[in-house]
């Protein structure tokens, strides 16, 4: 009963249709960014190295190497500011968290490709 009532409040903030992607996928994250009173969409591209949380707390971590510096962003999956997540390429992985990618540089960062039905072309 108690969780039922809590869920009824929480569910209103959840997204009806969630984007499909897995850890290891290379994704484009479409973020809504507010600058003053202007709203624009920015795309953050990178590899999903972790998915965490459940319900409204669900998040995913995207890592990319920009220049020589690794950049990681943690997105709340249900945030209205995360407009869309499109999986571009699937990577072959055997684990849920790909934190070992942090220790890798150069070509080794790239996961070998796995063909999967949920990826979409850009």
């Amino acid at each position, binding site marked *: 009963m*108690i969780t039922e009532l*809590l869920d009824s409040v*929480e569910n209103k903030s959840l997204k009806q249709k969630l984007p499909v992607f897995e850890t290891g996928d290379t994704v484009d994250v479409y973020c809504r960014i*507010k600058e003053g009173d202007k709203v624009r969409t920015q795309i953050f591209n990178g590899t999903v190295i972790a998915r965490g949380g459940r319900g*409204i707390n669900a998040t995913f971590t995207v890592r990319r190497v920009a220049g020589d510096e690794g950049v990681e962003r943690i997105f*709340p999956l249900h945030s*209205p500011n995360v407009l869309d997540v499109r999986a571009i390429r699937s990577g072959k992985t055997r684990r849920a968290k790909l934190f070992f990618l942090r220790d890798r540089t150069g070509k080794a960062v790239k996961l070998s490709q796995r063909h999967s039905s949920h990826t979409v072309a850009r």
Partner: protein
Amino acid sequence: MAMLLGKKIGMTQVYDSDGKLLPVTVVQAGPCKVLQVKTNETDGYTAIQMGFSDVKKSRVKKPAEGHAKKAEATSKRFIREWRLAEGAEAPFGLGEDITVSAFSEITYVDVSGTSKGKGFAGVMKRHGFGGFPASHGCKRKHRAPGSISSHASDLGHGGNLKKGKRMGGHMGDVRVTTKNHQLIGIDEERNILVIKGAVAGAAGGYVEIRQSKTKQ
């Protein structure tokens, strides 16, 4: 003005239209039965007495049963009064139900509840004293209050401490009112109020929700 009694369900988070994640407390509020309407002539003040949550039938006391019967209701566990201005017309009559729809045009609320009991708490927890160092030769007094007064400071007055000297003692389990919570949502079907921020007490505790006195 409006007032309701309710039960704290718990806390969660919701997104607002800007994509900001807000901490909210979910309260199951009402329907509250008006058990008595107090008037200036009969009681010396004006108020509405309302009750929330039924008492188990086998545990109903006879006097409580009789009191509730006047409003054609079952006896209630949580009964509080909504004090009205002198001589004001009561917005609800005897036996009427007050529901969350009474809050439909209200944006800010004050919430009163009973805080969680902490038992016998020391001065660091209870009053935020600094305590003593963990090391540098500090012995057996790490969380002690320190000196509580000198004998000389109270000479001729019985050698007592100053009244109100802050010391260890029972903490929590007192009535706490938090003010100006934004009302985020109302679910009339499930009798739910969604209130921004934390509300005193444990989940399952009873709370009173009133329209904010200061903020409209």
